[in-house]
């Protein structure tokens, strides 16, 4: 095809306008700046007040805080990794069951039975002056449980 100046300029203008329109629409739809402005950590209270080997649901923060035998803390999302239902705390086994599609997780949030394919997401924990803070804006995906995910007082 012959190189055509008019066609080139026309297409350039259309391309630039489309890119501009794409970003305008994308920013509008995703409303990305609404929440990231200020970051508030979830204050779960004194670390000492949590007993070992127990699960504490914090529904408003959308996480379970779990303290294991060795005193390590893990904050796991209540969202099932299969299709986003809220998992229940299974009191007998210390694990979690999804009411929607019967996925089961063990006490470390690892998959015991499908259809879920990966463990429950975790939230980063920081402990300052004996108080536990959980960053609920940042869900961390993982492949399996290991000790480095635990936080100690």
């Amino acid at each position, binding site marked *: 095809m012959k190189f055509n100046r008019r066609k080139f300029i026309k297409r350039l203008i259309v391309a630039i306008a489309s890119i501009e329109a794409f970003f305008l629409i*994308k920013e509008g739809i995703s409303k990305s700046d609404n929440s990231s402005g200020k970051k508030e950590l979830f204050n779960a209270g004194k670390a000492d007040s949590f007993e070992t080997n127990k699960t504490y649901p914090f529904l408003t923060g959308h996480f379970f805080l779990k303290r294991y035998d060795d005193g390590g803390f893990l904050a796991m999302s209540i969202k099932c990794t*299969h*299709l986003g*239902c809220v998992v229940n705390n299974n009191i007998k086994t210390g694990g979690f069951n999804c*009411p*929607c*599609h019967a996925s089961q997780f063990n006490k470390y949030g690892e998959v015991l039975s*499908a*259809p879920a*394919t990966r463990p429950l997401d975790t939230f980063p924990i920081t402990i300052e002056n004996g108080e536990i803070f959980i960053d609920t804006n940042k869900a961390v995906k993982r492949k399996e449980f290991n000790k480095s995910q635990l936080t100690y007082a």
Partner: protein
Amino acid sequence: MANKESDKRTPSTIEKFLLHLHPQRIDVRAIKFTRTFGLGGISALLFVILCLTGLLLRFSYVPTVADAYDSILALENKSIFGKFIRSLHYLSAVSMIIISFLHLIRVYYSQSIFKKRAENWIYGLIMMLMVFAASFTGYLLPWDQLAYWAVTVITQIIEYIPLIGHSFANTVRGGTEVNGNTLLNFYSLHTGILPILFIVLMGIHFWLVRKAGGVALPQQEEKVKVKVFPNLVWKEVMTTAIVVAVLFVLAAVITAPLLEQANPHNSPNPSKAPWYFLGAQELLLHLHPVFSAVIIPLAAGIYFFALPYFRYTNLNIGVWFNSNKGKRVVVQSATLSFVFTFILIYLLEHFLHFDIWLSGWHSWLSTGLIPFILYVAPVTGALLYWRKKHMAQVTELFMAITTIILSSYICMMLVSLLLRGEGMLLIF
């Protein structure tokens, strides 16, 4: 096109407008009800009803998390005919999905999507997807438990798409969770963008139908033509009257569902996607997400868009199922894939636990590739059988593949809708 022998009377403005949609004279076979069943026209009519009822609903609906549910309650309990208008909107939306799907099937099986009609098939498919999108965005607006968890489940399915899934789902939701941003997005799409797109695409769709010479008909030497006034227009008016009457009666009896207000801390058991997406959710229960959320939907999408453009050798445009052989192949493949899908679902649920037996393998092999092959291998065998035994040609074989896809989706949808109870377990 104007015929000299027609009477001299000048048509009224409305007649002139309708003559832009229809020609003055039309083949008598084209207006036989069983040629089209009026499905395209009924879809257009439903769109008009949805616009009118939607505009009325828009006066009382408040698209915020705090007020959405209460505004629906107020509409239902305090406005005169509020419940009726909402039910009418709901029923029209459900009918729209069914009718436009039937319209899609009708044009396909009467071989009306090839050559000069191929482009219109593409527009039709886009509109079919938009019908789903419109219904899905409307699903969230009542902000009850049904709406909240159905949308959570679907946006979570989007997350399984590799690379772009996460950011795409976040864009749709306006965040990492279904919240007020999602509601606002869906509200704008549902009441603004999608209706406008529909009007544009419907214009193109109608125009392309006329440009292709109207409804596809089998070749015939002699054509008998009749006037559109009153022959076709009378049928259209009657169909409209009947559809509106049926919808009004149903809306008086059936009430659009409304559960308790959405509660993000408590998922109902089971949590199901909107009914027309349940086939996809069922697939996700059995197959690894790489297959069920990526490969299969992508392949099926490409297949349907490419459908008019394959190399067919024996097209009989306008003939139902292309030939008698085609009809037999369609009936057989529909039955076979429905039954086979049903049996396979049952076996996978109760007996075939590949994830446990092959726990050492990578999960996309044990729960992905193996069940996938388990389905595809017998189906391919059936296709080969038809090719060998019945001398089925390309057209019939593609028709069989289309039928298998549609029939097994409908089977999965019905199983998920009717036969799954608590914990999404089969009830038998």
